[in-house]
């Protein structure tokens, strides 16, 4: 196929279509506005999807933190016979870790070592484009 010379009539057709497209894009403001509206709608949809995904995260992040903290405390008590101090201390630490998890999941604390700026940058970037639409 690439060896064949381009069909002149086809070429003419293409240029005509391109011209029409250009005039449509430049001419009536409606086209541009519509494209912008589309873009906005897509961004909104992406945002709401990310929002629901985040909502799913928050509760489980919190519960997991407390459970893991309590589990470690219980295990320490069992092996070192320090009952009940391991459970008390690690449950509290687990609670702190759970709060940290939730704050991280909601983007209010930077992910681990990353600065807050990179988190916000990342959010802005993912808001701008919706790879699924």
């Amino acid at each position, binding site marked *: 196929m690439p060896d064949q010379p381009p069909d002149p009539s086809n070429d003419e057709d293409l240029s005509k279509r391109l011209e029409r497209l250009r005039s449509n894009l430049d001419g009536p403001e409606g086209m541009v506005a519509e494209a912008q509206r589309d873009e906005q709608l897509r961004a909104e949809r992406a945002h709401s999807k990310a929002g629901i995904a985040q909502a799913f*995260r928050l509760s489980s992040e919190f519960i997991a933190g407390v459970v893991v903290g309590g589990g470690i405390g219980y295990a320490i008590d069992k092996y070192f016979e320090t009952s009940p101090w391991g459970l008390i201390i690690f449950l509290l630490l687990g609670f702190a870790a759970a709060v940290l*998890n939730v704050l991280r999941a909601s983007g209010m604390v930077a992910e681990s070592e990353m600065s807050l700026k990179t988190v916000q940058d990342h959010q802005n970037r993912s808001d701008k484009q919706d*790879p699924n639409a």
Partner: protein
Amino acid sequence: MIRADHFEEDEATVANDPISQFNISKLLQLDVGGYDISFTNSSLFMVATVAASAAFLIFTTSGRGLIPSRLQSISEMLYEFVAGLLRDSAGSEGMKFFPIVFSLFTFILVANLFGMFPYFFTITSHIIVTAALAFGVIGMVIIYGFYKNGLGFLKLFVPSGVPGVLIPVVVLIEVISFLSRPISLSVRLFANVLAGHITLKVFAGFVVSLSGLGLGGVIGAILPLAFAVALTGLEFLVAFLQAYVFAILTCMYINDAIHPSH
């Protein structure tokens, strides 16, 4: 009492309690070295999930059209969606993890969607399956993190700018926070799928039992029927979103392994 006598019969038709849909039954008894590795209905649906997603991707991309057909563009959208997800969270360096993220996403998505078929077994409703996936991801992150950064990977647990006195406490909290990741990852997926399927079954059960009560019951059954229909829609959303959440969190953990400190 009568129920118990006719249990076998019930099993053959439709069991009425909401839990029996999660029963594991052995299809092929296998026993190797004292370990029970029987081929169960769960294994069957895992194989079906892998086979269906692989067959779909191979079939739709076999044309390799420059202008994609409808099915091919579904595959391309799937690829671009996951690739965008990974590139956004872990940068282009993270793209070497694309195969595993893509496989995880498609596996969970297809498994969840398979679960939406009546009479089908939902593999993601068992915590052992989701926990295996989650611990696999975390194990990969830890191994790659140490391989790539050496002991520098431990910086993940020591945030900068913390006063020296507080470091032991903060490190403990960070370690617990890290350990809670696979738990939350697996419990979230399993709990959402399990709860959704039980709710759906309970509401559908109301329809059947109410409509057995005569005309008044049939009219009364309209409400739970409407709920069941709405919940089915919600379950499709959850099926997609849970796969999405699992994939995006995998990407974020991979990012931690690549850049433990910025």
